[in-house]
């Protein structure tokens, strides 16, 4: 059975097919949750919550091809809700870096701080594009927007990140 057939079966209440589909993408989904929450336990909680929501709302999946974008959207919304609930700030101070990694950490923190200042839609585009190597058409499907719009958002997001980092006085470009 291929992914489309599984999605069709899952939509009609086949638990096994749904489980197979989610299991197929579990690491990818976990990775997306982790990129928002930066914590294993929280990412697993949100994954669990998203699976629950997806199963309850399975009838809303109209296009069988779009299972992954659909569940990813549920997951991202879950991550945003979780972040709002906990009033957490995205960049985490990581004490694990030392010596040669110090400079990297500064760059990294600048980038992460810049990301927190972006509009959520810009942040989503950057996270999906650069942390998960998604194509613009995949991102467009997840965000339910035309590809051209996503392209514009990506451009704007990068412009704003650059501006934010420059404003912060950090060195923007790699050595």
């Amino acid at each position: 059975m291929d992914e489309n057939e599984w999605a069709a079966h899952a939509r009609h209440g086949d638990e096994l097919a749904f489980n197979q589909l989610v299991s197929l993408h579990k690491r990818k989904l976990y990775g997306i949750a982790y990129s928002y929450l930066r914590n294993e336990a929280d990412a697993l909680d949100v994954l669990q919550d998203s699976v629950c929501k997806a199963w309850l709302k399975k009838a809303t999946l109209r296009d069988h091809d779009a299972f992954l974008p659909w569940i990813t959207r549920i997951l991202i919304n879950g991550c945003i809700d979780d972040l709002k609930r906990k009033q957490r700030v995205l960049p985490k101070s990581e004490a694990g870096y030392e010596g040669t990694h110090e400079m990297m950490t500064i760059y990294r923190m600048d980038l992460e701080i810049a990301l927190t200042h972006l509009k959520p839609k810009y942040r989503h585009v950057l996270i999906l594009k650069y942390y998960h190597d998604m194509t613009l058409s995949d991102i467009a499907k997840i965000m339910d927007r035309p590809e051209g719009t996503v392209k514009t958002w990506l451009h704007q997001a990068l412009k704003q990140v650059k501006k934010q980092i420059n404003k912060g006085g950090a060195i923007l470009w790699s050595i």
Partner: protein
Amino acid sequence: MEHLENFRFHEIKQEIEAASGEVAEDRLNQAIAKGLHRAKRARIKRQIGFQVGIMAGLLTLSVFLLSYWGQDMEGWGNSTSTSAVQGKNTRPFSI
């Protein structure tokens, strides 16, 4: 737009990839199983809630109708109403 590679996205990406690779398979499977279990429980709860709601509604309606039809006209409702004072039958229909 200048070369995106210059941004330090790849460092964070590497960390995320490492984290995704590190998480144990059984923990992921457990999260999925728990999510499905929660969904099924929520669905059962919702169905029970719906049935209880319907039953409560029917019970309330039957109590109301019984009390309405079981009452004598003079003793029912607002005794100062014009119809009641004039002795007219205000019942919507008779059985």
